[in-house]
């Protein structure tokens, strides 16, 4: 089995008596209420999805991630996982003391606060998103964040509620699952979309080189116009049921927000899948991009900077349906002209679906289209 990122699968979930004691103690500690995104970060840290992180980044790691895309110990890490608070909130907490993180009024975790520090939002935006434009959703979110960051390890008391618990697996669980299935090589597929035939082609092409595929839709805060989480999940469930071998494909969710950090996020996505036990990771065109903020293949090139990532990226470019070939093809495999080709344009497919039209079978499996059509409005508003 592939080694977790940084060498150790983090487990900071409190259980049994330790959990009960921590929950009771939480009510007597300085309290910080966190939102859904941060609560999910806490759970992902505790369950090892973000291994080797054991908490929110301290100043040294934060600056190192921003400037060199590595933790202070040289381990690749591209997205700052931080806990922001306002100056007033920060004043309530003292370094080297524990605080209680609450989510929706319930104790979520104990945080062992190691340091409080200020950060430069402009530098953060430039380094992580490559822009300071407020039109970028990551920059817009950053603008609303508190001015102080809290760094320190966390211990999970109560995980946040999930609407999709049936599909939620931890890295400890996926590793056992892959082992039980006899998979030595596993390719991870990140998605935030419903599947069209181009996706399926990429997945099956990759699958032909490995033992199994781990289809891992990202569930969490997205931008307006993205597909609703339940639509993505149901569409994938029906696709796998009808078009994949049961023994070769696993569908499970990853609950974390989209950061839209393009190339940096592609590395982050690969790291998380490595922790789940994947040996390979599919990187598509404009991975984790938004609008025209990134070069469509910048997310491919960035992998050259990480020879020590420990997971093999599989790069895919553009696919289309070719009427003459009678199937999905790409520039390397199809000799026919543009007029024979139907592009898998996400925008076109979205437009058709939003107008109540069913995409043709050369773009989308009928079963998948039917599931989406049932939703009326399948998009985030």
């Amino acid at each position, binding site marked *: *089995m*592939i*080694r*977790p990122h940084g*060498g150790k*699968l983090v487990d900071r979930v409190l259980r049994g008596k330790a959990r009960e004691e921590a929950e009771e103690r939480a009510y007597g500690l300085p309290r910080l209420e966190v939102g859904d995104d941060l609560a999910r970060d806490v759970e992902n840290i505790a369950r090892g999805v973000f291994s080797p992180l054991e908490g929110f980044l301290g100043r040294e790691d934060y*600056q*190192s991630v921003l*400037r*060199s895309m590595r933790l202070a110990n*040289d381990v690749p890490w591209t997205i700052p996982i931080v806990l922001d608070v306002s100056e007033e909130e920060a004043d309530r907490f003292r370094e080297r003391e524990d605080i209680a993180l609450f989510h929706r009024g319930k104790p979520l975790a104990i945080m062992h606060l190691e340091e409080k520090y200020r950060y430069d939002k402009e530098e953060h935006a430039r380094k992580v998103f490559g822009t300071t434009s407020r039109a970028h959703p990551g920059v817009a979110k950053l603008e609303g964040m508190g001015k102080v960051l809290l760094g320190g390890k966390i211990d999970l008391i109560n995980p946040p509620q999930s609407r999709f618990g*049936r599909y939620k*697996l931890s890295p*400890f*669980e996926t*590793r*056992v*699952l892959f*082992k*039980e299935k006899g998979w030595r090589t596993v390719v991870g597929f990140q998605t935030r979309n419903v599947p069209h035939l181009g996706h399926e082609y990429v997945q099956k092409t990759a699958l032909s080189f490995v033992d199994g595929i781990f289809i891992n839709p990202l569930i969490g805060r997205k931008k307006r116009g993205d597909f609703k989480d339940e639509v993505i999940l149901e569409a994938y469930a029906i696709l796998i049921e009808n078009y994949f071998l049961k023994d070769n494909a*696993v569908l499970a969710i990853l609950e974390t927000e989209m950061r839209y950090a393009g190339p940096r996020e592609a590395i982050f996505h690969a790291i998380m899948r490595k922790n789940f036990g994947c040996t390979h990771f599919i990187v598509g065109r404009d991975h984790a991009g938004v609008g025209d903020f990134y070069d469509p293949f910048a997310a491919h090139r960035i992998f*050259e900077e*990480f*020879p*020590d*990532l*420990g997971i093999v990226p599989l790069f895919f470019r553009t696919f289309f349906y070719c009427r003459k070939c009678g199937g999905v093809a790409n520039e390397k495999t199809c000799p026919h002209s543009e007029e024979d080709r139907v592009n898998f344009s996400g925008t076109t497919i979205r437009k058709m679906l939003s107008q109540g039209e069913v995409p043709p079978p050369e773009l989308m499996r009928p079963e998948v289209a039917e599931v989406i059509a049932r939703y009326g409005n399948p998009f985030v508003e």
Partner: protein
Amino acid sequence: MADKHEFTTITIPSTLYKRLEGMIAETEFESVSAYATHLLREALARLEAGSEDVLSEEEEEQVKERLRALGYLD
């Protein structure tokens, strides 16, 4: 602002340095140091690959039970 411990110096035989220097000419590496860093990280990743199981037998059995209950295992 450069971190004070961002870089340090190691010594390698000058013959090796020259070989590396000759090799980077046709790459995107800007210096022998950058190329050597890349090679060392690549080598470290290979040395660190592979791991033992992280769960005890009992814990693993509990995980399998949940996986069966969810329909992931028969």
